[in-house]
């Protein structure tokens, strides 16, 4: 953000110079060799990309249209049957899948507001004129560099119902000391959201902080001169100034929450029952542990479609707000 001003300032000259300078060489007749050179530079990446991204994406679609199984010699094309099964109420797979989708949905709805608002407030605190900003920033970000397994292990013990340190401490100050943090609803949700905020809060905080630094200080001064108070400045200067950052953060945070796997896998084992078994957890289990690969491939595409719809809606909403803001 801070870099945009000089970039914008130099861009026109640069484009002018680049346009004049590079055109003669770009139009040279020996373009066959140029093309070859370019594709040779791209070759190592494209090899990986075609093998492990494009290939699997197509393979996955094809698999979802067959009765693919690792135990079957010949696969037959079954059309949209795997998808139809997912949308046929009453079958075990359909109800389990939609249950897991709703679990992911609940987690998105429960976690994203905290994952956006808490870092925003922390970033605003860190953006004040205080000492040791860097130290605080470092501490808040630190858990994010740890893997989810470390997080799961630490919090598994803190949140344990019988021997967990949290219930122990709560008992000491007279609160109930038998809260089933990782074994019963609704506490499992409190734990999963809380642990996720603890773990990843630092990421959005530093992104917001970078966004805040990019807001022109003159705008705050002008608002002060107009008699705006702290709250007023927050809504009329800070929030509009953070708009592009906000779009980025909400989009990436929704996608991250939609991909939640480790926290449930490690802390609640998807339980109680299947109450916290997320879509990713269910698809991975069906595809790789239960060998229901074809239905699982279909599920992964249904999840993808659902996320695409959510992303489009999110983009639309944000754009609308930007347009309203401009008017």
């Amino acid at each position, binding site marked *: 953000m801070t870099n945009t001003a000089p*970039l914008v300032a130099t861009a026109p000259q640069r484009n002018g*110079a*680049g346009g004049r*300078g*590079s055109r003669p060489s770009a139009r040279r007749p020996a373009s066959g060799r140029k093309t070859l*050179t*370019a594709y040779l*530079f*791209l070759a*190592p*990446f494209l090899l*990986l990309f075609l*093998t*492990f991204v*494009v*290939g699997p994406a197509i*393979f*996955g679609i094809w*698999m979802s249209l067959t009765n693919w199984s*690792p135990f079957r010699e010949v696969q037959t094309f079954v059309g949209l049957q795997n998808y139809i099964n997912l949308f046929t109420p009453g079958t075990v797979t359909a109800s389990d899948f939609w249950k897991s989708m709703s679990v992911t949905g609940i987690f998105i709805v429960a976690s994203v507001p905290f994952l956006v608002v808490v870092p925003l407030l*922390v970033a605003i605190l860190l953006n004040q004129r205080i000492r040791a900003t*860097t130290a605080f920033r470092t501490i*808040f*970000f*630190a*858990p994010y*560099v*740890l*893997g*989810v*397994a470390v997080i*799961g*292990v*630490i919090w598994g*013990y803190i949140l344990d119902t019988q021997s967990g*340190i949290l219930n*122990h*401490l709560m008992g000491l100050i007279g609160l109930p000391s038998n809260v089933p943090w990782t074994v019963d609803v609704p506490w499992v949700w409190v734990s999963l959201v809380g642990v996720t905020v*603890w773990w990843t809060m630092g990421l959005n905080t*530093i992104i917001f*902080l*970078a966004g805040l630094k*990019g807001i022109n200080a003159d705008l705050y001064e002008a608002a002060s001169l107009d008699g705006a108070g702290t709250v007023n400045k927050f809504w009329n200067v800070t929030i509009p100034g953070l708009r592009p*950052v906000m779009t*980025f*953060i909400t989009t*990436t945070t929704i*996608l991250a929450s939609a991909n939640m*796997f480790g926290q449930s896998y*490690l802390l609640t084992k998807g339980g109680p029952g299947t109450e916290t078994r997320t*879509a*990713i957890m269910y*698809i991975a289990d069906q595809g*790789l542990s239960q060998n229901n690969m074809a239905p699982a*491939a279909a599920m*992964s*595409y249904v*999840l*993808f479609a659902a*996320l695409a719809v959510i992303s489009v809606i999110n983009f639309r909403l944000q754009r609308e707000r930007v347009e309203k803001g401009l008017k």
Partner: protein
Amino acid sequence: MTTVLSRRSMPAKRAWAQVSLYVVLIALALIIVLPLAWMLITSFKTDADAVRAPYSLPDPVSIEAYQTLLTSGQQPIFLWLWNSFAAATVQTVLILVTASMGAYALARLEFPGKKIVFGAIISTLLVPPVVFLIPNYLIVQNLGWLDTIWAITVPGAASAFGIFFLRQFFVGLPPEIEEAARIDGAGDIRIFLQVLIPLARPALATLAVLAFLGNWNDFLWPVYVLLSPENLTLQPGLNQLQGAYSTHFAIVMAGAVIASVPVLILFGIAQRQIVESVAGSAVKG
């Protein structure tokens, strides 16, 4: 009138605001630090001590838990540490080499199909990784890579983000820098290696840190593609360790310490670069 009033009350008000600001920040910092400190403290306890007094200091200070881990045949945690380090390094190098070459072509060379290739790469950025999970498992299986380091390094090296991020950087460089080299008779390869790569060092360092952390902390994929105890990385390994020693707090916490200390040290050394590069890549991207 109002200005006089506010000027008089300002210093006291400001001091209070300052104090409460620090109180909130320190409280938050404690919430972050205490669980990590507790992990470290517990790892130096005996099993009995860890159960008896979960939140007191170790009495006596014991390295029993670490000794148990060191001699454990089923949970070779130092081997996992090495595996994690090796895998993260191999994948980081693969990403740096392939993404910098590809990004150079997409940013600085003209060729037919450029827009299609770039568009195809970028469009995969928003595809959830689970879409590739099952097909990639079968591909890795057919390549004979299950339970090897290749399974956890090569497929993930196809980094659309790496291409996007480095292309962004290369596009921002003025064309004059390579034109000067071209006049001196340098070819594309020399321009790439001797002009652009040195200039891209900060961007490459950023990408390296992000790639390393990403691979180090990956959980879902290694849980499914690594099978034998000696081939695990720390993340799936820690999960096994917890299963095997679920009632032995000290041992599991020692495992967590071993898994987190290397990245925390790396983070401590390079925290400014890491924090700024992560924030920068997001805000610019």
